[in-house]
C-alpha cells in the first residue's frame, strides 16, 4: 500500500527496460513486437489500476509522502501524492493505455522501440506529477523530454527531423534556465523540498525579493515553454504536426506538465499570504493566459491543415487553463482541473480522429479543401462532430460544462477581461470548426473513395471513441466530478495541511540566513544541516 507511489515510477521503467532488451535481441523485430505489445499493455493496465487506487485513497483524505530510502524530511527526496497528483497520474496512465492500443494497430511497427519509449515517457510524466522536490522535478522533466525527443522522431522522415531539432534545442535552453532558477531559489531559501520552500518563502526579507522575483520569472518562463504559453508557443504547432498520430495524441498531456508546474509553484510557494513574495507573478499568468487563448484561436482560424488546426486547439486550451489558474482562486483552480481532464482526452481523441481522416483522404491528406469521400466518412464525421462540439464548448458536452465553470468562477473584478475573451474565442472556434467539418465531410469531390485507397488500420477507432466518450461522461457525471475538482483545488490551496503532511512533526524550525553565525573568513554561512540518521 504505502509503496504504491514509487511503483508508478518503477513499473514503467522496468517495462521499458524489459521491452528494450526483448526488442533488441529479436532477429525479426516484427515478431517480437507481439510480445512487446502484450507486455506494454499489461503494464499500462496495472498502472491504471494503481492510479485509480491512488485516487480513491487520496480522495478519502490520505496524502502519500514517500520518502525515498527513508531519509528524514527535508533531506530525503519525497514523492508526494495528493489529490491533484493522483488525478494527473491517472490521466497519464489512462491516456497512455489508449495511445498504446491505438499505436498497436500499425504505427508502432514503423520504427523500433516504440513501447520502451512510451513507457519512459510515462515514467517521466508520472514522476513529474508526483515529486515533491523541485530539483527532482527537473530530473523527471529531462526524462520525459528525452523520451519525447525520440518519440517525436519515431518513424523518421525529414520533416520530423527538422521539427525535432528545433524542439530539442529549445528545450535544452529551457532546461538550462530551469537549473538557473533552481539555483537562485536554493541560494535564497536553502531548500529544494517544495513544502519546505513554501515555509521559507514566507520569511524572505525585502532584500531577497528581487532574487525571488527573478527566480519566479525564470520558472514561469520554463513552465511556459513546456506549456506553450505566448510568446513561447511557436514550437508547438510544427512539432505536434510532424509527430506521428499516436505520439501527438500522447503529447496531449505534455503541455499539462507545464500548467501543473505553474500550479505547484505559484500557488503554495508564491501564492497568497506569503509575505514579500505574495503573488509575485500573478498578473503575468492571467495576462499571458488570455493572450495564449487569443493566439491559439487566431492560429486555428488561419490553419490550412487538419492536424495543424488541432495543434492550435491545444494552444487555445492551454490559454483557457491558464485563464482559470491565473485567477488564483479555489474556484478557478477547480474549474481548471476539470478543464485539464476534459481537454487531455478531447485533444488526444481529436488527434486520433484527424489521423484517420488524413489517412483515408489519400493524397490530399489533411488539407482543408474539397477532397474525396472517406471509407468511414459517416463514423469519422460523428466522432469529429462530438469532438468539435466539445472543443468549442457547446452544450451538452464537457466543453460546455468546463467553460461554464471557468466563467462562473471568475471573480467580478476580472469578469470584464475574462468573459469577452473566452466567449469571443469560443465563437470564433465555432465558426472555424463548422467550416472545417463541412469541408471535410460534406464538400466532397466524389461519392466514392479514391481507387486504391484503404480504410487503414482500424486500431485507432476504438481508442478515439473511448477518448471522446470522456467528453460525454464528464458531462453526465458533471456533479460528482465538479465536487471532486473543488476538493482537489481546496487541497492545493490548503498550504498548512500540506506542509504538515510533508514535513511532519519533525518540521525544521524555520531559519533565515541572518540568524546564522558568520564564519571566520566572512562568507555568509548557510543553515547547518543536522547529520541525518538513515
Amino acid at each position, binding site marked *: 500500500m504505502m509503496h504504491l507511489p514509487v511503483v508508478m515510477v518503477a513499473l514503467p521503467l522496468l517495462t521499458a527496460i524489459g521491452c528494450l532488451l526483448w526488442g533488441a535481441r529479436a532477429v525479426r523485430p516484427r515478431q517480437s513486437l507481439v510480445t512487446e505489445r502484450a507486455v506494454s499493455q499489461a503494464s499500462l493496465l496495472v498502472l491504471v489500476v494503481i492510479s485509480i487506487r491512488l485516487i480513491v485513497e487520496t480522495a478519502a483524505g490520505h496524502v502519500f509522502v514517500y520518502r525515498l530510502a527513508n531519509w528524514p524530511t527535508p533531506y530525503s527526496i519525497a514523492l508526494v501524492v495528493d489529490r491533484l497528483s493522483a488525478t494527473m497520474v491517472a490521466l497519464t496512465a489512462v491516456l497512455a493505455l489508449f495511445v498504446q492500443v491505438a499505436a498497436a494497430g500499425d504505427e508502432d511497427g514503423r520504427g523500433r522501440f516504440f513501447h520502451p519509449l512510451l513507457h519512459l515517457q510515462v515514467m517521466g510524466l508520472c514522476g513529474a506529477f508526483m515529486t515533491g522536490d523541485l530539483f527532482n522535478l527537473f*530530473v523527471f522533466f529531462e526524462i520525459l523530454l528525452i523520451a519525447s525527443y525520440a518519440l517525436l522522431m519515431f518513424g523518421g522522415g525529414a520533416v520530423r527531423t527538422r521539427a525535432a531539432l528545433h524542439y530539442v534545442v529549445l528545450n535544452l535552453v529551457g532546461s538550462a534556465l530551469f*537549473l538557473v532558477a533552481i*539555483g537562485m531559489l536554493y*541560494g535564497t531559501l536553502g531548500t529544494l523540498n517544495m513544502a519546505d520552500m513554501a515555509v521559507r518563502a514566507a520569511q524572505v526579507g525585502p532584500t531577497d525579493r528581487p532574487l525571488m522575483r527573478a527566480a519566479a520569472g525564470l520558472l514561469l518562463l520554463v513552465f511556459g515553454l513546456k506549456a506553450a504559453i505566448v510568446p513561447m508557443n511557436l514550437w508547438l504547432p510544427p512539432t505536434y504536426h510532424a*509527430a506521428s498520430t499516436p505520439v501527438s495524441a500522447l503529447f496531449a498531456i505534455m503541455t499539462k506538465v507545464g500548467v501543473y508546474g505553474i500550479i505547484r509553484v505559484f500557488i503554495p510557494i508564491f501564492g497568497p499570504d506569503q509575505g514579500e513574495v505574495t503573488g509575485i507573478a500573478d498578473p503575468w499568468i492571467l495576462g499571458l493566459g488570455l493572450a495564449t487563448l487569443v493566439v491559439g484561436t487566431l492560429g486555428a482560424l488561419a490553419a490550412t491543415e487538419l492536424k495543424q488546426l488541432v495543434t492550435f486547439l491545444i494552444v487555445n486550451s492551454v490559454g483557457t487553463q491558464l485563464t482559470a489558474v491565473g485567477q488564483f482562486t479555489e474556484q478557478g483552480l477547480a474549474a481548471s482541473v476539470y478543464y485539464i481532464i476534459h481537454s487531455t482526452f478531447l485533444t488526444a481523441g481529436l488527434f486520433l480522429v484527424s489521423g484517420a481522416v488524413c*489517412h483515408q483522404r489519400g493524397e490530399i491528406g489533411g488539407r482543408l479543401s474539397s477532397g474525396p469521400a472517406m471509407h468511414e466518412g459517416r463514423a469519422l464525421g460523428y466522432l469529429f462532430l462530438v469532438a468539435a462540439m466539445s472543443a468549442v464548448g457547446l452544450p451538452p458536452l464537457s466543453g460546455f460544462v468546463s467553460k461554464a465553470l471557468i466563467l462562473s468562477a471568475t471573480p467580478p473584478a476580472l469578469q470584464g477581461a475574462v468573459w469577452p475573451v473566452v466567449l469571443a474565442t469560443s465563437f470564433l472556434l465555432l465558426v472555424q470548426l463548422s467550416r472545417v467539418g463541412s469541408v471535410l465531410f460534406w464538400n466532397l469531390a466524389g461519392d466514392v473513395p479514391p481507387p486504391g485507397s484503404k480504410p487503414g488500420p482500424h486500431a485507432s477507432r476504438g481508442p478515439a471513441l473511448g477518448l471522446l466518450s470522456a467528453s460525454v461522461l464528464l458531462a453526465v457525471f458533471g456533479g460528482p466530478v465538479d465536487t471532486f475538482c473543488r476538493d482537489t483545488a481546496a487541497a492545493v490551496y490548503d498550504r498548512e495541511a500540506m506542509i504538515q503532511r510533508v514535513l511532519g512533526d519533525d518540521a525544521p524550525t524555520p531559519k533565515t540566513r541572518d540568524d546564522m553565525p558568520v564564519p571566520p573568513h566572512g562568507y555568509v554561512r548557510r543553515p*547547518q544541516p543536522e547529520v541525518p540518521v538513515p
Partner: protein
Amino acid sequence: MEVLLSLGVGAVAACGIYLVLRERTFSVVLGLALLSYATNLFLFSVGRVTVGAPPIANPDAGAVAYADPLPQALVLTAIVIGFAMTAFVVVLALVARQRLGSDEVDAMPPRKEPPG
C-alpha cells in the same frame, strides 16, 4: 573571488547564447554546451563560494566554515544529464544534416512529404 566567478559565468553564458542563435547546427551544439557549463558553474556557486572547506558539517566544531554539499550533488546530476543531452543533440544534428541535406538549423526538407 565572487566577482571573478560571476564575470566568468556571465562571459561563458553570453558566448553560449550568441552561438545558440547562429544558423549552423555545429555552433548551436557548441552554444548549448557552453550554456550548460555556465549553468553548472552558477549552480556550483549558489552554495556560497568557499575555499578549502570540507563538504561535511561537523555539529561539534561550532561555527567552522564548510562547503555546502548539496549544490555539488546538483551539479553532478546536471553534468550527467547535460552530457547525455549534448550527445543526443550531436547525433540529432548529424541525422538532420543527412536527411535535410544541409547543416542549417532552419533547413527545409528536400522534398515535400506528408507527415503522419
